[in-house]
């Protein structure tokens, strides 16, 4: 299917888009999602913001950027599409359940990027509907990064049988790293990611969504775990993450990681290593020719 393309001259401002995306839609009719792609071309990366992002997530500041950073750059387009009047999926109540991203080749901080995001694969789930936010980053037409963020839209019903979602299993083991997450971490991550969702910074907002305290962004946890094993990773890889349980701030969580036949597996758990918050698997990919 050939998609329409909406080219934005610059990343949309997140707060208004986010506010729009919160407005409930009428429930009439079958659920819809925007079919067009949202694109930003020739985006220059902000090195100072990248440094702040690396400091906060534990990455080493290098000339090549972390793949999760590319996700952060595409995130405004996610919000932009979800705030579209066409969309019946609202960010309100949508839960980021999994993420997969592939780095096809190392991406430099100096490279100008084309970001391309669209929604796809609205499908039934036992507790609502799943939808994929599909992003791609290109440099001079060459795809260098692909990302898929899967959200669960609660209370949305889509026709059909719910797909059986594969549940990754977690073998409890004592963490060999402990992270102490301060209460202000959500605020700090907001300042580098631009994600304005108050559920990460406000106790009151968190309560509205049924959490006793603010929760840390799943993509921070993702980035922090990837940073922990980054030195062991091949230059190009696919990383799959399942967000199994939110982390309430402040928190002390543990990390376990082990090499696997094809790459690396890691889990962010409670401090005893029994209950997982995030499960990660990394598989090496052949680089772009």
């Amino acid at each position: 299917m050939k998609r329409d393309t909406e080219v934005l001259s610059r990343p949309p401002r997140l707060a208004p888009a986010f506010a729009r995306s919160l407005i409930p839609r009428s429930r009439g009719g079958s659920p819809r999602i925007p079919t067009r792609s949202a694109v930003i071309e020739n985006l220059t990366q902000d090195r100072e913001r990248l440094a702040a992002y690396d400091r906060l997530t534990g990455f080493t500041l290098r000339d090549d950027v972390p793949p999760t950073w590319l996700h952060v750059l595409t995130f405004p387009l996610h919000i932009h599409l979800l705030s579209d009047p066409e969309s019946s999926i609202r960010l309100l109540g949508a839960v980021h359940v999994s993420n997969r991203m592939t780095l096809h080749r190392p991406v430099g901080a100096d490279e100008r990027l084309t970001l391309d995001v669209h929604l796809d694969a609205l499908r039934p789930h036992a507790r609502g509907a799943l939808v994929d936010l599909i992003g791609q980053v290109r440099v001079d037409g060459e795809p260098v990064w692909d990302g898929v963020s899967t959200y669960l839209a609660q209370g949305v019903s889509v026709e059909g049988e719910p797909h059986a979602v594969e549940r990754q299993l977690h073998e409890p083991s004592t963490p060999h790293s402990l992270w102490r997450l301060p209460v202000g971490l959500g605020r700090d991550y907001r300042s580098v990611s631009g994600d304005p969702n108050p559920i990460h910074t406000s106790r009151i907002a968190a309560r509205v969504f049924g959490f006793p305290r603010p929760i840390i962004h799943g993509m921070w946890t993702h980035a922090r775990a990837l940073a922990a094993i980054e030195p062991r990773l091949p230059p190009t890889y696919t990383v799959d993450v399942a967000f199994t349980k939110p982390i309430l701030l402040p928190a002390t969580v543990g990390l376990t990681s082990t090499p696997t036949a094809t790459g690396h597996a890691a889990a962010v758990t409670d401090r005893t290593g029994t209950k997982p918050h995030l499960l990660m698997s990394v598989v090496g990919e052949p680089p772009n020719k």
Partner: protein
Amino acid sequence: MSHEAVIVGGNRIPFAKAGGRYAEASNHDMLTAALDGLIARFGLSGQRVGEVAGGAVLKHARDFNLTREAVLSSALSPDTPACDLQQACGTSLEATVYIANKIRLGQIDSGIAAGVDSASDAPIAVSDPLRRILLKASAARSTKDRVAALARIRPSHLAPAAPSVREPRTGLSMGEHQALTTKSWGISREDQDALAAASHGNLAAAWDEGFFDDLVTPYQGVTKDALLRPDTSIEKLAALKAAFGGPDGTMTAGNSTALSDGAATVFLADAQWAKRHHLSALARVVDAEVAAVDHPSGADLLLAPVAAAGRLMARQGLSLDDFDLVEIHEAFASTVLATLAAWESEDYCRGVGLDGPIGTLDRKRLNVTGSSLAVGHPFAATGARIVPTLAKLLHRKGAGSRGLISVCAAGGLGVVAVLEAV
């Protein structure tokens, strides 16, 4: 022309508990005191020594040239060069190796290896955000920019950042790491307490015998290692509550090293040079090896010296039976016990690339004058404490006696060295 590096002797100040008698003494003060004692012992006053290499683990920004500054404060000739060197708890053993290597290459005739640490005078930094704001403000070109930068300071930024003994990559303290090792190797509380009691007993006996009279110069009125408890016993140690590894943990304040303050030095020289200068050598530095483990991926943080020892012994064609004495730094009692267990483990040794197990150590040869549990462990000073102690012990046993030093360090590092009495 070949050169041999020999240990002429050493000097340290007694080690003290953090916040104790050295609470007001800085790293600079303690290192200078240890150096001055060494200089006095060997009549080096006013002399130029080839090089002084030393360091500290907990360092103030102003101490960027800590060792050189201490040399300038000491009685050595101000023409004596110095360098700072740091390898966590392996610092002064690594400094010993560095000086020995320079001697063996004929680059210097004599040198001093040293280490110092103060847990009392640890650097307190401003928080990271505040530091960045201050840096921006100081770089600002106009008052307006400066005010704008400073306006970003928030009350939460003002909380100071204390230095941490946590591993940066894992967020675990040494004790928490060792607790994982203790559990996975099944090291019992009884064995740990017995090792701690033996350390205190051995150290107390050595002090009583006057063993340290030519290895230690008292400082600030401290005449003996202040952590030493000659009257401790397995029973007393058994009464302590677990400090690491949760409520059912086996590691206590009694079988773990306490934060301590102190400084230590080693005087090394070219064997021929020492002879010409009428300095008698205790032992020669035979060889050394450093290893590391991937603790962020779950390897036992403090067992890196196992691989180092195995590789070193293989290179030298030595087996465990060839060592008359063995010094294993007692970061924790369970570190020593896990090290001994790892030496015996075929799986572990092969896992770190050795050909087979290192072997079983006769405990009578281990830490015979006590180690860090009883002496204390000012991180960077421990290597320079052990080297002269072992050299003297070997010298007393007679020429050709061999000793092994094994020091674990933060960052999954392990430093080992072999000494041989001359």
